């Protein structure tokens, strides 16, 4: 039986572990040279920081994940530096490109997609300026490269990553000039009870906020970012506080992020239907609690199958592999399966509270100024998108056809979420009703010049 696992983050690692345990030798495809995921990403060779320095409270989990990653690589057909850019589900074939060039077709009988997530953004005037990154980007810079996106950055958004990144920057010697959280304190406080479903994580979050205050990092909650200012690069953030007073805070970089969105393009190309998850505020590929997609032979786990965080990714990765094994009548661990199902149910309650505590600021997106570029690839503004709505575009793909929103190099990865808010608001319908941008191959750009076969 040919099993392919796409992605070597926490979900992929734990999926492969279960497959290998059952005697299956999967093909394991990872886009980066190493694997390990984003939260527990390892720097390239030559960096010397300890796991404790790199991952803080996640160090133990990181060490265990990396140990499994390294142990599993030789027991699989390990293919790093390899992008899966297309799927032909009817023939069960993946199309891959290794090291930016070499093409291959990878057949499969069963496929586990562990494709991860990326930051969810809210476009602001000036967000295309050099010096503006995602929160995840700011964190990757520090963790995997030891650099800060600036020496006095401003971090903007909401969610655990905002606070964690702020503390990491402060500790590294690049004290943030401001941490701007669009969520009011009370919204977060109301969800405290729900977040006790994962008490250690919740208490750690409380600790991070306290540590930032102790270090004298300026914090604004229930605040509104208005514009990033600068000519050659970001030099200040124009924002409004909870009392509607406007400020201009100088900085040398800005990081933006409002939670995460699944990187689910491959599930889309595999023919998996999507459902709108109002709580997550994301379109998520349809799967059962074990990770089975309605498309035969396709399984999904980790944030790419709906945001759950790194811990859930590990659980769901193992769970999807067990589902695959059971479906294939191969030996699978029933006790572990039951244990994972229980853990996943508990984590889902925590996640629900977390999503309520750190909501995507949909209203800010909907009210975006006409001149703000929503699509940074093709520089398509909110005004152009609203013109598409006026020209009778009832859903996202028609809006794309009319306005070119989402037609650039990133294929709507970044603009999809805010564009849906703008369109829904312009049409006076819900964001679920305007749908989502359909996936089209290649999942990421491929060169016209292909190496000779």
């Amino acid at each position, binding site marked *: 039986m040919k099993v392919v696992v796409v992605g070597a983050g926490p979900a992929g690692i734990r999926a492969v572990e279960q497959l290998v345990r059952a005697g299956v030798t999967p093909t394991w495809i990872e*886009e980066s040279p190493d694997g390990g995921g984003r939260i527990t990403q390892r720097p390239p060779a030559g960096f010397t*920081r300890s796991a404790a320095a790199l991952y803080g409270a996640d160090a133990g989990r990181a060490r265990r994940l990396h140990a499994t990653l390294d142990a599993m690589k030789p027991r699989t057909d390990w293919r790093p530096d390899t992008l899966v850019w297309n799927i032909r589900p009817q023939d069960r074939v993946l199309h891959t490109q290794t090291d930016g060039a070499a093409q291959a077709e990878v057949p499969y009988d069963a496929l586990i997609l562990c494709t991860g997530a*990326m930051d969810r953004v809210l476009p602001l005037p000036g967000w295309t300026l*050099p010096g*503006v990154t995602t929160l995840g980007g700011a964190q990757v810079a520090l963790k995997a*490269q030891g650099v800060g996106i600036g020496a006095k950055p401003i971090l903007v958004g909401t969610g655990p990553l905002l606070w964690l990144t702020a503390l990491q920057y402060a500790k590294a010697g690049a004290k943030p000039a401001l941490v701007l959280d669009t969520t009011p304190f009370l919204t977060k406080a109301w969800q405290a009870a729900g977040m006790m479903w994962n008490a250690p994580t919740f208490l750690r979050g409380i600790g991070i906020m306290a540590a930032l205050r102790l270090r004298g990092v300026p914090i604004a909650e229930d605040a509104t970012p208005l514009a990033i200012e600068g000519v*050659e*690069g970001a030099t200040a953030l124009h924002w409004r506080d909870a009392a509607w007073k406007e400020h201009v805070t100088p900085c040398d970089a800005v990081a933006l992020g409002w939670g995460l969105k699944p990187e689910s393009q491959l599930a889309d190309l595999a023919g998996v239907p999507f459902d709108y998850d109002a709580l997550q505020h994301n379109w998520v590929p349809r799967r059962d609690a074990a990770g089975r997609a309605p498309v035969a032979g396709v399984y999904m786990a980790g944030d790419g199958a709906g945001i759950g965080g790194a811990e859930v990714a590990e659980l769901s990765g193992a769970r999807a592999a067990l589902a695959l094994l059971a479906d294939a009548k191969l030996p699978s661990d029933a006790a572990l399966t039951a244990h994972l199902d229980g853990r996943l149910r508990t984590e889902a309650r925590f996640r629900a509270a977390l999503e309520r505590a750190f909501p995507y600021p949909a209203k800010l997106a909907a009210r975006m100024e006409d001149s703000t570029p929503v699509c940074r690839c093709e520089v398509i503004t909110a005004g152009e998108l609203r013109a598409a709505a006026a020209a009778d575009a009832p859903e996202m793909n028609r809006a794309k056809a009319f306005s070119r929103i989402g037609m650039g190099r990133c294929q709507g990865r970044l603009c999809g979420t805010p564009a849906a808010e703008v369109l829904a608001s312009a049409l006076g319908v819900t964001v679920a009703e305007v749908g989502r941008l359909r996936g089209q191959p290649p999942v*990421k750009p491929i060169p016209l010049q292909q190496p000779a076969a």
Partner: protein
Amino acid sequence: MTATRLLDQDRPGLIFTVDGVEVPARQGDTLLTAMLTAGLGHVRTSEFGDGGRAGFCWMGACQDCWVQVAGQGIRRACTTLVQPGLEVIRR
């Protein structure tokens, strides 16, 4: 913009070129890190007249940091490690 070297920077130095100009970097830097810490400000220019771009996501998702690398074609600066003598051309 200028990215700031903060931690774990005790790595061997090397030289590569950007648009024909020699730029210092360190082993293990991505092209994005090397170009932005060297003060180059941007890694590509937007085709639509709104100035320079310096990447955005740092993780291979946003597709906003493509550069030309001699002998390697078009590469994402954030997912390509710098090597001594590498010739980068900004687009």
